[in-house]
């Protein structure tokens, strides 16, 4: 196996050699494409069923299809070549019309290694370069041998860091300079925590979907749940004891049914959590933060410290009571929807604080001076929500009152249901908007609040991109404005400030923003 050869600096004039990904990745991609092939094969089988074609013809058809797909996969693999230059990576693709893309290492937000189960069996990994410029701009090499992927990632990162250190005296911030290759564990998710996290990720959505599916797809069940015969037969057999036991037992049965749904919801959350968060480890090295997780599909992401724009700490109403929190880094890479930069899935306040401080975003402490947002904020928010829903309800009832439309819509309590939803949503908005507070100190802007899902945002004053004061008619009448702050990869809003206070806040932020250029920050 060829190892990654990064040409020495200065050999820029000589084009680096073009290479292909590992040949075994062809096998991996083809096997993972098998489920996709099932559809055309089934279509073939179904469409030829009536024609009484001999099995040999159908069989050879399938073989031919498989061969064609394999040939296409091989061509795609053969015509995809990459080259690693001194400070860029180039990818050439296309069968006849070749397209070449160069990605300067400077523009790489973070490099991740992903190992789906099958690739892992072959010791392969996908190397993904995230640019933060949207999905289409990201570049991934599927697949390289793991060791080679790691070497490539380290090479990219070293080069970029050297570049950065040579170019800007300010360098990365939050930097308690770590020795070169030493990694210290910042956070690791124990197995007990993993299962606790699984419980919190209980999915109500799955339960609802399942309940809906039982109604929609009852024809798939091996019995008919709506035919009296089914239940008579059941009651005559094993169920007769239940029926004899009377209403109490039947209630128990209904509860059992609900319990089963609940269990499925819990199990779904548990399985999903164990699959993604297994072995969650966050380490800190000179290169930045490194996160490894996953049971079957293993991912290994490196996040440079200086790319972190803000820290988001979230919890839930139950979790908060039990003292559990989760944390996420906000960065451009996460913005593109590609990276999910969870750094602490479930941890104690002190653990979250340790990670946040390592990134240069200290959490608030007892000395933090909080300012409550206007007490008018929750009712205003609720009013605005109620207004939007009122328009929706009015529109819906107007549409339903048109005779031809009403004829096509199945009868049902649509409007009362919509009103109930509106009331629920309005109440939710009101509760979430209560107790919002913010704090500005010499270096950071913080905001916290929320009731069902409390959250805390910590932003670096210097990393704010823009400031917007915004008001609608309600806020305007009261002399209040919302302050929207642009953050690369996220957003932060301080609601309902009196106009003079908002102006002072803007002025203070502009003062700290003009200190450093964005290219040193993003």
């Amino acid at each position, binding site marked *: 196996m060829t190892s990654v050869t990064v040409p020495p600096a200065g050999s820029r004039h000589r084009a680096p050699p073009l290479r292909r990904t590992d040949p075994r990745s062809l096998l991996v991609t083809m096997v993972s494409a098998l489920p996709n092939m099932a559809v055309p094969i089934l279509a073939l089988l179904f469409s030829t069923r009536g024609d009484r074609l001999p099995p040999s013809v159908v069989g050879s058809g399938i073989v031919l299809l498989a061969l064609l797909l394999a040939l296409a996969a091989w061509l795609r693999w053969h015509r995809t070549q990459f080259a690693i230059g001194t400070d860029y990576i180039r990818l050439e693709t296309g069968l006849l019309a070749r397209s070449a893309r160069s990605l300067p290492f*400077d523009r790489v937000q973070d490099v991740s290694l992903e190992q789906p189960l099958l690739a892992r069996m072959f010791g392969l990994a996908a190397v993904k370069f995230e640019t*933060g410029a*949207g999905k289409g701009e990201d570049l991934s090499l599927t697949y390289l041998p793991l060791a080679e992927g790691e070497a490539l990632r380290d090479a990219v990162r070293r080069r970029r860091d050297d*570049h*950065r250190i040579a*170019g*800007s005296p*300010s360098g990365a911030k939050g930097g308690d300079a770590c020795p070169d290759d030493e990694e210290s564990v910042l956070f690791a998710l124990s197995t007990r925590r993993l299962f606790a996290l699984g419980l919190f990720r209980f999915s109500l959505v799955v339960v609802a979907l399942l309940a809906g599916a039982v109604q929609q797809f009852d024809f798939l069940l091996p019995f008919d749940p709506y035919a009296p015969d089914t239940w008579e037969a059941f009651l005559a057999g094993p169920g007769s004891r239940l029926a004899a036991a009377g209403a109490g037992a039947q209630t128990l049965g209904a509860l059992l049914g609900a319990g089963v749904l609940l269990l499925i919801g819990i199990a779904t959350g548990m399985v999903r959590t164990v699959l993604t968060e297994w072995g969650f480890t966050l380490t800190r090295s000179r290169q930045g933060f490194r996160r490894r997780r996953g049971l079957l599909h293993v991912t290994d992401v490196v996040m440079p410290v200086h790319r972190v724009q803000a820290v988001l700490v979230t919890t839930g109403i139950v979790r908060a009571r039990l003292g559990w929190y989760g944390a996420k880094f906000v960065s*451009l890479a996460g*913005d*593109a929807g590609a990276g999910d930069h969870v750094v602490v899935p479930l941890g104690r306040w002190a653990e979250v604080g340790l990670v946040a401080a390592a990134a240069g975003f200290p959490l608030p402490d007892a000395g933090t*001076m909080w*300012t409550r947002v206007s007490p008018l904020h929750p009712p205003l928010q609720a009013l605005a929500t109620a207004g939007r829903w009122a328009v929706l309800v009015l529109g819906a009832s107007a549409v339903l*009152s*048109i005779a*031809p439309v009403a004829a096509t819509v199945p009868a049902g309590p649509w409007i009362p249901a919509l009103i109930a939803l509106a009331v629920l949503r309005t109440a939710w908005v009101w509760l979430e908007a209560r107790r919002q507070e913010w704090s*500005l*100190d*010499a270096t950071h802007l913080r905001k916290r609040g929320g009731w069902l899902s409390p959250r805390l945002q910590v932003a670096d004053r210097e990393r704010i*991109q*823009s*400031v*917007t*004061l*915004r*008001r*609608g*008619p309600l806020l*305007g009448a009261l002399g209040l*404005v919302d302050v*929207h702050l*642009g*953050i*690369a*990869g*996220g*957003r932060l809003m301080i609601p309902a400030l009196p106009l003079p*206070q908002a*102006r*002072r*806040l*803007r*002025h*203070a932020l*502009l*003062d700290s*923003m*003009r*200190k*450093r*250029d*964005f*290219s*040193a920050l*993003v």
Partner: protein
Amino acid sequence: MHSDAPAHPADTPLSPLDPRFVSLLRVAMGRWALLLLAAAFAGEAAAGLPAGLLTLPALLISAVLVAVVPGRQYRRWGYAQEGDHLRVARGFVFHSDHVVPFTRVQHIDVTRGPLERARGLGTLTLYTAGTHNTSVVLPGLAHEQALAMRESIRARIPRRSA
């Protein structure tokens, strides 16, 4: 209040946009008016209401939209290139007031659609990093003015450190 937030100087007065921008706003409002009229016609026909019950009010609203609103909108737009940042304010009922320091500008665009071109206008857009709420759009500038502002902002963007 926060001790480290210094008293701000009074916000400098905003410059108005090019007066030719009003006719662009009128075209935009005209589209809404047409949509409203079409909806009123369709609603009347579909619900079998007496003629004029919906269309007359719609006609009235359309007249206000086209005749009165664009002028008001225009007066509410304003911008200021103050030292090291650009400020753009707009809107009366829904008011917004953006400020972007030049140190945060990633790139600058000057664009003009066919309607703007016919009036000699251009739109200046400043982009910052990120994907939401990351651009400040300043339409309705005389094209030469937009180009001049682009150059002056470009000159003020600090040299990239990388």
